[in-house]
């Protein structure tokens, strides 16, 4: 079975631009969470979606938004990029009914120049 897949793996954007990151959860998993990991820090929670509804939001500005599609894949959108948005963006999926473990993807490395 495929694990959590994220695309793209690497991305370079200019300040002020917009970016869309994508995540496909493990087949059968209906919950997707997004985290931002700045170099040298632990992941910080951004959003959690379950059954296509937002279930949790971290302390991030409104420039960050996300959604979950009927097939349970998800997009994270960031508008008006700042240099400080440079980070590894991680997606995690969980089979809420079948267990408690969150499976993380390899992440998207976003560099804002």
């Amino acid at each position: 079975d495929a694990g959590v897949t994220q695309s793209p793996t690497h991305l370079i954007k200019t300040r002020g631009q917009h970016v869309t990151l994508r995540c496909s959860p493990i087949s059968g998993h209906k919950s997707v969470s997004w985290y931002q990991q700045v170099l040298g820090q632990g992941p910080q929670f951004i959003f959690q979606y379950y059954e296509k509804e937002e279930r949790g939001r971290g302390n991030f500005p409104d420039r960050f938004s996300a959604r979950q599609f009927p097939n349970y894949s998800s997009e994270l959108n960031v508008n008006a990029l700042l240099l400080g948005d440079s980070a590894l963006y991680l997606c995690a999926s969980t089979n809420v009914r079948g267990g408690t473990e969150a499976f993380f993807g390899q992440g998207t490395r976003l560099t804002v120049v």
Partner: protein
Amino acid sequence: QQQVKQSPQSLIVQKGGISIINCAYENTAFDYFPWYQQFPGKGPALLIAIRPDVSEKKEGRFTISFNKSAKQFSLHIMDSQPGDSATYFCAASIDGTSYGKLTFGQGTILTVHP
């Protein structure tokens, strides 16, 4: 109150030694405490997790010790191997499962010398 504080930031251990990483939390509503291992270029992978009703949990060479009154928990890696060299994160969750919001510690870079 939502913070999880992790120490040390880095740790160097000889092969066969014991690696110990400590975490402390303030929010008594946390009820699920997982540890994650992350290799460069990879996402975090769950190693072992514990709930507050248990004081210790062991899986292979990995043991979590939990002290509810002190609001502290630690990861012990017995017989540390060079392949254990990675960054380790403790985390905590309020809703009892890892599908909710995970609050991570700052991470510990473990280096195991052959």
